[in-house]
């Protein structure tokens, strides 16, 4: 049993909240009322936007069919997950096709891009696409996540700047929140197997959950928040590992006689984080093993952060009452 010093009430509250959230979620899934919810989500049924009509905002089609008559306009963007779309009118934004059957007639006009990631697309040669036509799921990638080609100078700056920024964050964290940071560092250093295992499980499951949430479109902001939160957890974990690494570094320097006193906690964290980040960046050069080590480091840090609940509780690796170890 993970032993925490506080009462079990928060865990109970978490369970209750999760239950309510799931009940709402399941209830939402069970809703089979045909029609549009909020004017932008088509769940089922047959719909038509007649000539001269304009539908404001984004539109998400998860089932059913929609006919956009010639002369009708959708403000866009339109996300097509399943069902049928017969476009004879105009979409002022992007058309994103992830599934279902989409037909663009001769009078159809898409002012933005046509991103075709899945489903069937029948395009009349007379249909107008003002933007680009992107085939494959590359068209659905989130803005800012594309691979960016960097010049050697930019690469060098990144190599130096990213570790430096994180090390600085580590310095301030160690200076102003030394307790939580040292609790996370202690969990990572003293229980690496437990923290690593827990972190790995989180790394396997949570990204899949976030992707799943993103596909609902409605919960996309939550998914992005989760992604940011994930980055924060990983960065915090690295700083905590850096904290311990810096401490060992300081002790090593002292033993070698290069320093009289150990490094102060903020400076130890700064130096340790900087060293760790450089090491992690260098791991990219080693194929497979480098990646595996990188993942393990991420898992170790993230696991320690989550087990200590961001350092606010000490992780005590004492499970439920166990018999003594075997007499040897």
């Amino acid at each position, binding site marked *: *049993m*993970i*032993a925490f*010093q506080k009462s*079990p009430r928060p*865990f*109970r509250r978490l*369970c*209750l909240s*999760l*239950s309510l959230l*799931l*009940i709402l979620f*399941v209830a939402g899934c069970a809703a089979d009322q045909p029609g549009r919810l909020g004017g932008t989500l088509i769940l089922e049924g047959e719909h038509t936007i007649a000539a001269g009509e304009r539908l404001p905002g984004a539109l998400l089609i998860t089932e059913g069919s929609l006919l956009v008559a010639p002369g009708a306009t959708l403000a866009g963007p339109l996300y097509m*997950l*399943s069902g049928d779309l017969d476009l004879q009118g105009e979409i002022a934004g992007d058309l994103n096709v*992830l*599934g279902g059957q989409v037909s663009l007639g001769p009078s159809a006009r898409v002012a933005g891009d046509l991103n075709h*990631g*899945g*489903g069937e697309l029948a395009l009349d040669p007379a249909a107008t696409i003002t933007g680009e036509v992107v*085939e*494959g*799921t590359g068209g659905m990638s989130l803005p800012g996540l594309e691979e960016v080609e960097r010049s050697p100078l930019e690469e060098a700056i990144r190599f130096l700047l990213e570790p430096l920024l994180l090390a600085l964050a580590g310095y301030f964290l160690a200076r102003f929140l030394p307790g939580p940071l040292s609790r996370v560092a202690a969990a990572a250093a003293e*229980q690496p*197997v*437990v923290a690593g*295992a*827990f972190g*790995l*499980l989180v790394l*396997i*499951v949570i990204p*899949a*959950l976030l*992707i*799943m949430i993103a*596909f609902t479109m409605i919960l996309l902001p939550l998914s992005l928040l989760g992604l940011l939160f994930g980055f924060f957890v990983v960065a915090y974990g690295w700083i905590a590992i850096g904290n311990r690494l810096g401490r060992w570094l300081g002790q090593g320097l002292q033993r070698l006689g290069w320093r009289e006193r150990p490094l102060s906690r903020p400076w130890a964290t700064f130096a340790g984080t900087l060293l760790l980040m450089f090491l992690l960046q260098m791991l990219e050069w080693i194929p497979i093993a480098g990646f595996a080590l990188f993942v393990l480091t991420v898992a170790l840090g993230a696991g320690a952060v989550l087990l200590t609940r961001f350092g606010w509780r000490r992780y*005590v*690796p*004492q*499970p*439920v*009452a*166990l*018999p*003594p*170890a*075997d*007499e*040897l």
Partner: protein
Amino acid sequence: MELIRYLKHGRWTSLFGYLLFVGMMATGYYYNLTFVQLGLVDLGERIVGLGQRQVALNMALLAILTCITALAVGWTMKRRGWSSRFLVKLRLAAAVVLVQTALTVAVTAVETETDFRAWIIVASLALGVGVPATFSLTVDLIPVRDRGYAAALITAIAYFVAATFSGSWRIEAFRTQALLIMVPGALAVLALAFIPFPFLKTLARQHERPAFYQGRYLSRDPQTGSLRLRRSILGLIVLMFGIYFVDSLGFLRLLDTPVYMNTAWQSPEVGIRAFIGATHVVTALIAGVLYSTMGERQLFLWIFGIFALTHFMYVFALRFPLTGNDAGTLVEPMLYATAVSLYTVVNFAIWADISTPRTISVNTAVGVALSGWTATFISTALALQWQEQGVSLVDHLNLVDALAILFFLGLLLLIYLQPRSETAYEVKNR
């Protein structure tokens, strides 16, 4: 970890017992996963020429007979005191291995439905004896502190070999693979069971030591002094039976769906099979560590949560298939492998942890028979009924997903309603 301590301090007898148990259970589980669960379907349909429904009914017969035999043998073992007698259990296990090896050799002689049914009846009797006999050896060979780790090793080995080397789901291939392991294994186990090696006496007395005797979920009543099962674990175990049922119900349909075959054990690409095998290994080891260090409620929350997510993703992938993204299709089998590894580890460790040497045979029989065999029996029957009613794939998986989410909700509710028992740390710092 006790395994490392045994190694460090040269406790070779205990170490041998530990590895013997892991080897026996991993082989047995591998045999069950491949030869029994997958090979028999091929034997029935391709060699004997039975229809899908007939084979499923025979598999259900196997499940129910195994369940009844296991319960009867487990109860008899407890009543006669064999449950705490190491040599008796080892001899029973050796006899089972011998019968299973003979059955594996004889499988090529099965040609008619009568042969097939007779083969299944003998196999279910052997399995029924094997479940309580082999699982009961946990209390003799694996110290309580290491039960999660030993379960992790068993799961990792069995699934890795089964996933990586099972490209062809033909009875002939499974037979060759199984015999390669079983013939030397059976000889070794027979020798151990019937030749009086002196070190066996040490192994036979291990269960009396405090490090082995009392399962982690038992606590001593301060007034009567007797050992009692913690109530909080009971509800979780009942819910776990549900997860077995849901898993089996979903797996039966996924197994027949061509779109999922390329990303499962029967994929023609060895890379995909190795990926699934490696996922099983990593997640089984994670489960071993978490079983040993995490509270059962958190552990079960993870298992149920991952199951619900996995089935949800299968339904989602079916409703909104993406093109041009082959890597994305591996997410579902990865999550599936994770969920299966987690609960398999728990299933290997938990029965010994709710038992003493006296009660392990019957507890194991009830647990494994109900979770493994009855769940399979009911889910097979239900899957058949749905198929006959023309339930579509997406509706089938929708129902499975709804059940998985329902079990997750049930667990959350159970956790909310049940008072949490104090950890050892809290007791010490009260």
